[in-house]
């Protein structure tokens, strides 16, 4: 995977623009997943996918093979998602009102059933999913970004800190706060229904 990425990157750098398609084929779904988790909005996530690939293409001369192409690409995607979310000025205080009234909230809830739940989640899965979504929406941008990168993308605290321009401690605390809020919202659900 990584090897074929670097082959494609080398071909693009040598002037073969069509070779970029292999990279788009390989990474667009995972960039979409990242962007959706970051923004919570399908349309925004689509914007992020396109903009990420365009930016990566234009900046490819700056990419050095120290990190894998994927890591570099996801960093562009998460930074752009963050910009987008920031530009929406979604503050944690207003997130609830927005998702109750705003189009972002309704879209997301509509889109939800398509993420096929596993059989063990049929009973309480919908409610858990909704609660996760609404709690993520109530996080501050920084909390949400740091948490998504750690939890879903498996990035280290150090990596997250460097993409967000935060110290290790500030990054940790963003994650802790996110976990606390998720815990408060989800614990009653998962610890009553999930376990015997």
């Amino acid at each position: 995977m990584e090897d074929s990425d670097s082959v494609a990157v080398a071909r693009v750098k040598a002037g073969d623009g069509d070779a970029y398609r292999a990279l788009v084929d390989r990474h667009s779904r995972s960039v979409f997943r990242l962007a959706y988790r970051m923004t919570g909005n399908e349309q925004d996530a689509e914007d992020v996918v396109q903009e990420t690939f365009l930016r990566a293409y234009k900046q490819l001369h700056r990419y050095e093979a120290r990190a894998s192409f994927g890591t570099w690409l996801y960093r562009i995607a998460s930074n752009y998602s963050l910009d987008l979310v920031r530009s929406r000025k979604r503050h944690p205080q207003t997130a609830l009102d927005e998702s109750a009234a705003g189009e972002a909230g309704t879209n997301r809830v509509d889109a939800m059933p398509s993420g096929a739940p596993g059989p063990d989640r049929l009973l309480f899965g919908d409610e858990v999913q909704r609660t996760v979504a609404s709690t993520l929406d109530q996080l501050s941008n920084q909390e949400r970004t740091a948490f998504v990168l750690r939890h879903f993308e498996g990035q280290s605290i150090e990596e997250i800190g460097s993409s967000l321009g935060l110290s290790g401690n500030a990054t940790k605390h963003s994650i802790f706060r996110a976990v606390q809020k998720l815990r408060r919202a989800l614990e009653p659900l998962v610890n009553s229904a999930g376990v015997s």
Partner: protein
Amino acid sequence: MMNHPTEEQFVLYYYGEGAGIEDHIGACEQCRASYQALQRVLNSVDSFPVPERAPDYENRVWAAIEGRMGKRSRWLLFGWRRPMFAAAAMALLVIGAFLAGHSWQRPAPRQMAASDSGVRERVLLVAVGDHLERSEMVLVELVNAGAPVAGRLDISYERNTAEDLLESNRLYRQTAATNGDVATAALLEELERVLLEIAHSPSEVSARQLEELHRQIEDRGILFKVKIFGSQVEQSAGNSTTL
């Protein structure tokens, strides 16, 4: 059991970033229970659903970006940034007509009616402002162009633009000199040398050639001069004329 780990340590441990607390969790029932509760919460977050994409999603993404990738896409940034352009464009038309009526090979007569010469000066000022702005953009693009990673960098766009600018530059320089505007003539003369350098470059340059161009631009401080001069021109054109 002393020193139960904190909740934060549990979180770090869950994500594989904490120092080993497994011995404690193994031995302490209370902590085991609270760690398991945390685990259930964090595991349930995985159920956050991401809408499925269509089977041909990759094709759609490609179709959406391919047209915007354009080999020379960074030049899309190239555009008229300031409202002044509208005035400047009109001024170019006016000055074009003005030029058509005069032979610029021969110096224009020095004595002109005051009002007549005032209008001409303003028209010229606006046109020069526009010219400086375009020149500035070419210089900025070249200065910002990163060294080519492999092989050569295609600078044909800047080269062709420099060629165009060179022609008007000569015209404005001669006019300024004729009008006795020494400062403008001097600036345009310096600019002309740099534009000439760019216009004479190959359409694809190596890293070394690009560096040489950077040096030419930077040594003369031409970009800075053009910027300062351009903003002065813009200011006085804005103050004195509504074309």
